[in-house]
């Protein structure tokens, strides 16, 4: 395993690919990157095995700004980008601002891939990634980044999306390596089962499913509904902005015991989404010829930000009971770090490939 250190001040690569900086912190070679519709997350491991995750909301918002605003934003630790005089606040503060100003954030990605209506956002996306990953510790350091599987309920592919993000990573000096999102969940969460089972990444734009046997994906696909779908529908029925619906969803709601009208609407759409996903998985399994015949019952692991709402696993189990699933399942559980699971899985793949 090659070692490297973070930072660009005194990067020196030795024969084995390791580098050192002033701080002396040594990092393993290889990066993980979760390219999610809602969040971007990078992962890196130091020589002691500690994993550090940097996460940033994948959103921005336009604001009117002058030099005073720029100075204030910097003092308030708020990141901004000014493109040809047009100013945008990026990351989590953009989401907070959208809620305060009762506006929608602009999203570089939609439905799991690059948004066709936000092509101008790519320079911002590059800045976000640069900020999360830093510079590579040596030229062409491997960076495994997550990509969605082809959807079964929408007519698009990921070729363009993968090409653009691969291109950005190349521009940043990394060697890009795409990894299916569901596969990353398996790498991160199913080591105890010899990387055999079903990994589900419940994201903002899509749900990604991957069935693995001994780390090899037997079947991968995605459904084009995710947390954003819930937000949009809740916003419509309650007459509020989608950003506001997201904020309500993330403030500690339990879909097992909703307490008011907003939470009831969230529960209804969550149940519908989970049932829709399970039915899609079942249908896909039943129509697939490449499905392995597992000798033992397998485990299902759910990860991703959309799975972090209270009661998600209970409702998932509840809906699971109501369908006749074609595989024997021994348990359904949450990922250890649901929000970081994909980034960690990408890191495992990167470290194993170094």
């Amino acid at each position: 395993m090659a070692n490297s250190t973070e930072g660009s001040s005194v990067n020196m690569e030795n024969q084995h690919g390791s580098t050192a900086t002033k701080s002396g912190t040594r990092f393993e070679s290889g990066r993980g990157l979760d390219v999610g519709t809602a969040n971007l997350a990078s992962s890196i491991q130091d020589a002691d095995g500690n994993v550090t995750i940097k996460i940033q909301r994948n959103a921005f918002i336009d604001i009117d700004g002058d030099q005073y605003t720029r100075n204030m934003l910097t003092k308030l630790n708020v990141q901004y980008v000014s493109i040809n005089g047009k100013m945008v606040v990026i990351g989590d503060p953009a989401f907070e601002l959208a809620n305060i100003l009762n506006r929608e954030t602009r999203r570089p990605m939609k439905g799991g891939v690059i948004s066709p209506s936000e092509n101008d956002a790519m320079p911002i996306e590059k800045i976000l990634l640069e900020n999360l990953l830093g510079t590579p510790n040596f030229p062409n350091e491997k960076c495994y980044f997550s990509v969605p599987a082809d959807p079964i309920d929408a007519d698009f592919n990921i070729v363009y999306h993968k090409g653009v993000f691969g291109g950005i990573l190349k521009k940043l000096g990394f060697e890009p390596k795409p990894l299916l999102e569901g596969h990353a969940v398996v790498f991160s969460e199913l080591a105890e089962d010899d990387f055999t089972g079903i990994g589900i990444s419940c994201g903002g734009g899509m749900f990604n499913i991957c069935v693995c046997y001994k780390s090899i994906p037997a079947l991968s696909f995605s459904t084009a509904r995710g947390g954003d779908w819930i937000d949009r529908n809740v916003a419509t029925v309650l007459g509020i902005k989608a950003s506001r619906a997201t904020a309500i969803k993330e403030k500690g709601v339990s879909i097992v015991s909703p307490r008011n009208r907003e939470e009831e609407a969230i529960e209804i759409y969550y149940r519908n989404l989970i049932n829709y996903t399970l039915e899609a998985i079942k249908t896909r399994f039943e129509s697939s010829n490449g499905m392995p015949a597992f000798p033992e019952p397998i485990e299902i692991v759910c990860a991703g930000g959309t799975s972090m709402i209270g009661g998600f696993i209970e409702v998932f189990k509840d809906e699971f009971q109501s369908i006749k699933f074609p595989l024997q399942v021994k348990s359904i559980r949450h990922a250890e770090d649901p929000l970081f699971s994909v980034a960690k899985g990408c890191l495992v793949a990167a470290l194993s490939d170094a």
Partner: protein
Amino acid sequence: MADTLDIQKVINTSTSSVSIDDLNKKGFKQVKVLNQAIITKLIGEAVDRVLSERSKEISKEERDKVIKEARTQFETLAKKRLEKERTRIDELERANNSLTTELETLRKRLSASVEVQATRDQAIAKMEALESEVSRFRREFPELESNLARQKAETQRLQSDLAHRSLEVEEVPALRGTLQEYEKRVSLLEGQIKAKNEEIERSRSGLADPATLERLLAKVTERVGNGSKIDASQIMLTLDGMSRRLSNIGSSGGGLSSDVDAELTKDFALNALFDKEKDGGIESNVTRVKVKENKAAGVKDALAKLKKLQQGVADGE
């Protein structure tokens, strides 16, 4: 005493009563007052004079008697008059008090009346506003009526349209039956195509299912171990080939084929996407603001197991 002089009567008939206020209004600031003693004295003198003239005719005793009777009579009359005046003063005082009370009551009523007037003015203003509003509604009413009529006509049209659509819906079952028939035919053809494809795939690359591969490997190993007559070099070539395929899948992260990875080895310029950077028009404080870092659970165990698994596959275990 039939011929006794009635001084009271004489005074009443020869004088008139004038109130002090009236005198004051007429400009009399001071008046001369004849009190009872002076009048009595005057009468006494008058009687003395008359009697002295007649003294030759009446005796002194008779004269004193007349004077005494006259004085007594005058005092009686004066006393009565005084009492009457006192009574009148009392009555006037009572009347004055009554008027003062009445004046106070009237003042209060006047004050209340002013408030009532203000309330009334407000009520009138409101009423005028309402009348104005009513007038406006009356003016708009014809237009609203016209709108209502239009809406009714539209509703009727929609109802008629709905009835027409209902008739069309009745035809749906028949169409659905036809569609199902076509779907069955398509499904049949798809099945045939799928079977052919599977047959081609099997003959082209062998069984791709990893579980089946493992079973096959086990069987082959068993046969070799049992001293089967199968050509050992051919078996080794087959095993090498399988091992390479499994190894390739594992080392590429397992998620994507080498063809897909090849897409990323091409250096996309992406100039159009990042043309704004070339203009040099981008300014940011991103490098000056630190992104929050989170510590996550380690991946050492998972990594070790994955490497072991990959090594095992590569070794043909």
